[in-house]
């Protein structure tokens, strides 16, 4: 991997289980950090640290689901693996809908746990890469003038130069000049390439593409 080594964060109120799972993770060669409550974990949430989270669903105080909610709200996209002594369907459905990576029942076999952790770390890595790339792309788009960005937005809707000019109340020639400028700035050769770049950056996701 390129950046920092991923960390598996484990949050469980049961000290004995916590020790056992971390032994397993240690034997499996993972780096980990443990917390005995969701509140403790949220005190210093890891910022931009690759890894994943293993959380007990039922804990006194803040539950696993509430921890998930808090993380989602704060924009932390650490993948979460839920562990529970007793899993009921509504809770698991709710957790998965909120983006949980996995939902495991105690006692959990090491293969299951390691697979889930691997998958979570892979997903985290993937998402991190996408975000990284998007960040780079966004930086490229940042050099565009507001007017040029406006033109991009219209081009993404599939409009022709003429239509864009009409919409922005200017001449087709001006639009052509803007278009040549921005394509040079973004170092793209074709409209198709521009569209892909814009999509990956996630910057122009809000306006609907159709109509």
């Amino acid at each position: 991997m390129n950046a920092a080594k991923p960390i598996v964060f484990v949050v469980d109120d049961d000290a004995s289980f916590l020790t056992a799972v971390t032994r397993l993770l240690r034997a499996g060669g993972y780096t980990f950090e443990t917390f005995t409550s969701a509140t403790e974990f949220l005190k210093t949430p890891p910022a931009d640290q690759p890894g994943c989270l293993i959380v007990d669903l039922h804990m006194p105080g803040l539950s696993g689901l509430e921890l998930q909610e808090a993380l989602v709200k704060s924009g932390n996209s650490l993948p979460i693996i839920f562990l529970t002594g007793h899993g009921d369907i509504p809770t698991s459905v709710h957790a998965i809908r909120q983006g949980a990576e996995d939902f495991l029942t105690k006692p959990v076999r090491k293969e299951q746990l390691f697979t889930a952790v691997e998958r979570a770390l892979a997903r985290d890595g993937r998402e991190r890469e996408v975000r990284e790339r998007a960040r780079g792309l966004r930086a490229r788009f940042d050099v565009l003038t507001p007017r040029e960005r406006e033109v991009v937005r219209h081009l993404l809707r599939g409009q022709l130069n003429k239509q864009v000019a009409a919409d922005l109340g200017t001449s087709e020639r001006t639009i052509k000049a803007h278009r040549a400028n921005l394509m040079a700035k973004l170092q793209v050769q074709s409209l198709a390439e521009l569209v892909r770049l814009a999509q990956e950056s996630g910057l122009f996701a809000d306006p609907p593409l159709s109509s």
Partner: protein
Amino acid sequence: MWLAQLSVLLLLAFVADAALTLWRRGGATERRRARVMGGSLTVFILGAGCFVALVNEQVIAVPYLVSLPFLIVLAAMGYELSYDVLRAAELARELRASEQRMELAASAAQLGLWAWDMARDEIWATDKARELLGFTQSERLDFNRFLNSLHPADRDSVSRAVAKAINGEGEFESEYRVARQDDQTLWIAARGRVEFDASSKAVRMHGVSIDVTARKQTEAEVQRQSAELAHVARVSTMGELAASVAHELNQPLGAILSNAEAAEMFMNQNPPALQDVREILSDIRKDDERAGEVIRRMRALLRKREIELQPLDLNSVMEDVFRLVGGDAALRKTAISAELSPRLPAVRGDRVHLQQVLLNLTMNALEAMARQPPEKRRLTVRTSLNGNGTVEITVTDSGDGIEPAKLARLFEPFFTTKPNGMGMGLSIARRIVEAHRGHISAENNASGGATFRVTLPVTTEESKP
């Protein structure tokens, strides 16, 4: 000469005094006896005096009439003697009749009569009493033989009750089982009274015994049925707690599995991480015990059993309850605060049944607060010692409280305030508490919510089972 006459006069005075004393002392018989004895002795003395005088004056020749006053006295005394004999015979007859009447009454009422002479350690008992204890009509009975005829489990309590009667109260009361040779077990209820001598030393105890086997069987049947009902309620409670129990059980099981798998991996390392494996093995043992404890608590609750009263620490019962509902309370986001008095005397109670009562009250309280926002959900359990020799447990919730109109009917069977309640929990709880000679009540708090209060008598060493 004068001397003789003086002595005769003195003798007369003595006889008159003795007769008068006897007269004053007694009833009709004594008075008559005083008359006869005093009269005849007076006659004898006067007669003897006159006789001596007549001989002195030589009016009569010497020895002839000497026997006359004696004859009179002998006749009077003989009369008295035969009267006493006749009277004794009459008394004996009356006694026999009264005894027969007593026995008739006793046998009609199936009562066995007995008397224990403590100095000689001999027990007299009617045929019925002997039959109840499984003794033959003629064998000699003493306290030890009596004690050995009892069910081994009851010997101590009977000895204690007897000792208590002898050393103080004078009243003996006990119920015990007799295991007879014919393999029949009878329940006997016995009452007795101790006689004390002038130095207040116990000399005798007499009393009655009666066969109460039928009553005991009915009681046992009633108890069996209520135990059955309580068991059903317990099983359904456990059903409600299934999620929490599964969680509690899977916690140590999960730790054991992960530890074992980690140990395998440590063993496969080169060199094997033996120190880690050692720690793991010790942790596995601890978690195994933890899981076993969960199962033991559950099994105890699920087992069918009757109430058995034993000295019991209510705080430890409450702690068991906390462990059982802990998971449920966490799911319900309810904080439980326990204020358990550190110096709580033991009560006489059945652990499982009291656990059921407290579990019921605790779960009701959790449920009662479901509609409150989480930060307002507060369950407080207190134990304390009351001044009047009772221990009190209160379970206080911060729910909506109980409608005043429903408060009085809360402990009635089939009465419920829950939309899908059966109305059995609290009525069973009351039955269990009352079987412990305790009391259960409910009230609304001034600050909202309700409080359930259970009081149980503190155990005392000499209390009867």
